């Protein structure tokens, strides 16, 4: 139970130590100084390219941390290691926003010294227009929160069809922007870090074609961009470090190559031949090849960043379908699960940790340890059989849906591991593979939802709300599709508690309440938490200050140096 916590703490200490020494450099060179880190070309080697560079079309986690090199948003990630990094920080705005009307109205004031790449000053109208664009059906892909949160915006079709705009966003002057929400949202400063809050100059908007050269507000601008293939960034001369202390913007030039194999990327980072010494990656975590060389005191130990992105791998029950309408059955299976084989199937204990809680072990999300159905490391089939017998269930056969791709984290290997563990408890599991591309579609429609399925859930921002609400809020059950409340669980008391926490603007109070809520819901065994994500990323030997932040778990391109 304490295991997860003790695992986090040493890694955070390690990060702090790294920060002083500067990622790959020796500690003899002294502390990393953002004022003198400028110069050189950073190479980024990635697996998947950025499919869309349009700020309207990027999800909160889309594109790794590359988009934030181009787009400044009202607020941004605090970019610090550990817990401090899990907080939002002002970016285009002067502060985190002023809530009023019980957190139903949020007012932001823009800085005076912010400009687009062509030198035009950024105004509140540009921010408003950027948000409105993200409502256009021609530009899909962004996070869904604004449609839900803004007053009367759910059916807005974007500025191309409805140029009158969204009434719930007011711009009384060039510097001020006011958001009117339909219910209290204490997490608004977190949402304002999304790229939909990046300014877009209306005169330069080309609709779908905008992403060929999106107008930058950040330290870099696009020199060339080919989706899923390459992206070259050069300095934006109208950006100034005085207006932006969070982005160090060390390299003069950043060249992203995508479409590479993860094994090849990591091998290149290890070999570090030529330009590869100045290379980093945002989406290729270490593979088994490098794990073997890590932690041995070898040279590679200086080229690794260990962080944790808050995410949980779990098994979801559909409580509307037998036998999972029976809580005893769900409990019995919770006892039976073998988390060691799940962890191994996901890549081993260095890159995933076993979980007994739905919330991953980050304080920012309100994590509180609990283990309601102790299964030990390898499962407790005897206890599972006993609980099944108590429930009067015998010869149980269940179906378990999983993706056909192991890359997803809910693929055949994990499914087979669960199948094996349940077999020990006398439960037969029939596996159903669903094509990865349609997996969320099939499981997200109550009409087609399987009785049990493997799932992965990551935090859109480090707070308990986006982690728990879509999964357990009964009002979030969407029958037409896109549903994440797979248990189809609807308890008015829980819904009321969610509303109460949402109205809180003090994060530490909110964290305690989210944690308590998770502990309470956990008793119902609506899910079986299996494991949580850890992120281990390599970087080239010349790369300095590659420190993972507490928000994304990976190092931040805006702060690393290759000089």
């Amino acid at each position, binding site marked *: 139970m304490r295991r997860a916590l003790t695992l986090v703490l040493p890694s955070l200490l390690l990060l702090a130590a790294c920060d002083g020494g500067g990622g790959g450099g020796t500690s003899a060179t002294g502390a990393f100084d953002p004022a003198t880190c400028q110069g050189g070309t950073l190479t980024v080697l990635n697996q998947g390219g950025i499919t869309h560079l349009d700020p309207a079309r990027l999800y909160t986690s889309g594109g790794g941390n590359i988009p934030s090199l181009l787009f400044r948003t009202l607020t941004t990630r605090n970019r610090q290691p550990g817990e401090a990094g899990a907080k939002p920080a002002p970016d285009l705005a002067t502060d985190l926003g002023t809530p009023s009307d019980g957190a139903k109205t949020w007012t932001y004031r823009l800085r005076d010294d912010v400009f687009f790449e062509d030198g035009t000053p950024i105004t509140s109208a540009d921010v408003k227009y950027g948000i409105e664009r993200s409502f256009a059906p021609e530009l899909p892909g962004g996070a869904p929160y604004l449609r839900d949160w803004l007053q009367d915006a759910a059916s807005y079709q974007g500025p191309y069809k409805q140029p009158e705009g969204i009434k719930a966003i007011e711009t009384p002057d060039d510097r001020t922007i006011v958001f009117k929400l339909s219910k209290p949202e204490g997490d608004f400063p977190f949402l304002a870090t999304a790229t939909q809050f990046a300014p877009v100059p209306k005169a330069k908007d080309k609709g779908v074609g905008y992403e060929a050269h999106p107008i930058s507000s950040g330290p870099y601008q696009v020199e060339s961009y080919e989706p899923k293939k390459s992206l070259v960034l050069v300095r934006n001369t109208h950006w100034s470090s005085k207006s932006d202390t969070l982005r160090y913007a060390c390299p003069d030039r950043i060249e992203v190559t995508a479409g590479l194999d993860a094994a090849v990327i990591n091998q290149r980072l290890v070999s570090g031949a030529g330009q590869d010494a100045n290379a980093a990656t945002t989406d290729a975590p270490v593979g*088994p090849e490098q794990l073997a060389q890590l932690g041995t005191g070898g040279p590679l130990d200086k080229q690794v960043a260990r962080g944790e992105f808050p995410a949980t791998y779990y098994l979801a029950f559909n409580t509307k379908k037998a036998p999972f309408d029976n809580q005893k059955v769900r409990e019995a299976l919770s006892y039976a699960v073998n988390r060691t084989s799940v962890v191994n199937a996901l890549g*081993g204990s*260095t890159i995933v940790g076993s979980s007994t809680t739905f919330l991953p072990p980050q304080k920012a999300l309100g994590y509180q340890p609990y283990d309601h159905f102790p299964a030990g490391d*390898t499962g407790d089939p005897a206890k599972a059989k006993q609980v099944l017998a108590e429930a009067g269930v015998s010869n149980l056969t269940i179906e378990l849906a999983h993706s056909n791709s192991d890359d997803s984290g809910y693929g055949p290997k994990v499914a087979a591991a669960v199948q094996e563990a349940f077999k020990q408890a006398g439960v037969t599991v029939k596996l159903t593979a669903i094509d990865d591309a349609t997996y969320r579609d099939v499981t997200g429609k109550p009409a087609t939802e399987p009785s049990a399925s493997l799932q992965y859930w990551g935090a859109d921002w480090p707070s308990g709300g986006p982690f728990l609400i879509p999964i357990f809020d009964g009002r979030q059950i969407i029958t037409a599709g896109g549903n994440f409340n797979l248990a189809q669980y609807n308890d008015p008391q829980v819904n009321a508690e969610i509303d109460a926490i949402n109205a809180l603007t003090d994060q530490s109070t909110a964290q305690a309440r989210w944690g308590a809520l998770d502990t309470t819901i956990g008793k119902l065994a609506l899910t079986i938490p299996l494991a949580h994500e850890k992120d281990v990323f390599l970087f080239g030997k010349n790369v300095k200050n590659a420190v993972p932040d507490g928000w994304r778990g990976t190092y931040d391109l805006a702060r690393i140096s290759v000089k």
Partner: protein
Amino acid sequence: MRALRRDRGFLVGAAIALLMILVAATAPLLAAAAGQDYTTYHDNLLDSARGGVPLGRLGGISGDHWLGLEPGTGRDLFARVVYGAQVSLGVAVGATILEVLIGLLVGTAAGLGGRWADGILTRLVDLVLALPILVIAISLLAIVPQDWPRPLLLATVIAVLGWGGTARITRGETLTLRTRDYVAAARLSGAGWFRIARREILPGLTAPVLTYAALLLPTNMVVEAGLSFLGVGVRPPTPSWGQMLSTATTWFRADPMYVIIPGGLLFLTLLSFVLVANGLRRALDPRQSEVLR
């Protein structure tokens, strides 16, 4: 036949090929003899902190696990390899049989049919020969629903895209054979086309078609392995060699045995079938031109 008996390459190839077929046919028995199955996880034999690489030398080879373990899961590699042989060979043999059947049917029909039938069928064969097999197979296999029986589907897709060569050869041979005296005699005696095809033409086709089919078999095996490698082949947990090699790409240094065992077996099996085909070609049909593409 005597030539075959003296062809050492053929004999060695045939021996290995037969062994592999035997292994594939008796996979459940072999796994049972080893006391293993291809689904059980052995987590206690893996080094979890190092990504789940098998403990011990040579990928965890031991008295219990004759070829070691699959990294990441600890499933018995011997059991997975012998079941993998079943998939590889099964799909290849199935596809080859289907190809030969379709090819014979279309080829004889073109060869014996009238000018029109021949013209249309020949055009059709040309078209099939012109299809980019791998590309279409990937598209098709990715699009069809997940729950269709995979090995059968693979064999069918490979066959439907690959029967052109057999048809072309059959047609050519049929055209030659139909000019022979005994065929003409049969025609004069009032025999129908179907009867002629069955009685007079088919026996004459045996040698060239057999030679060609022997070469098709390893070709189809390569295609299956390639499709599995790309992730559109058989679905896990069903093992296949191509699929193993696909995951092995991330393990080649940490666990070289996981590359060597399925890779070596695939190579050996293919080589044995090529040797057999080569021997057959030399013995049955020394003048036949290059057909393996």
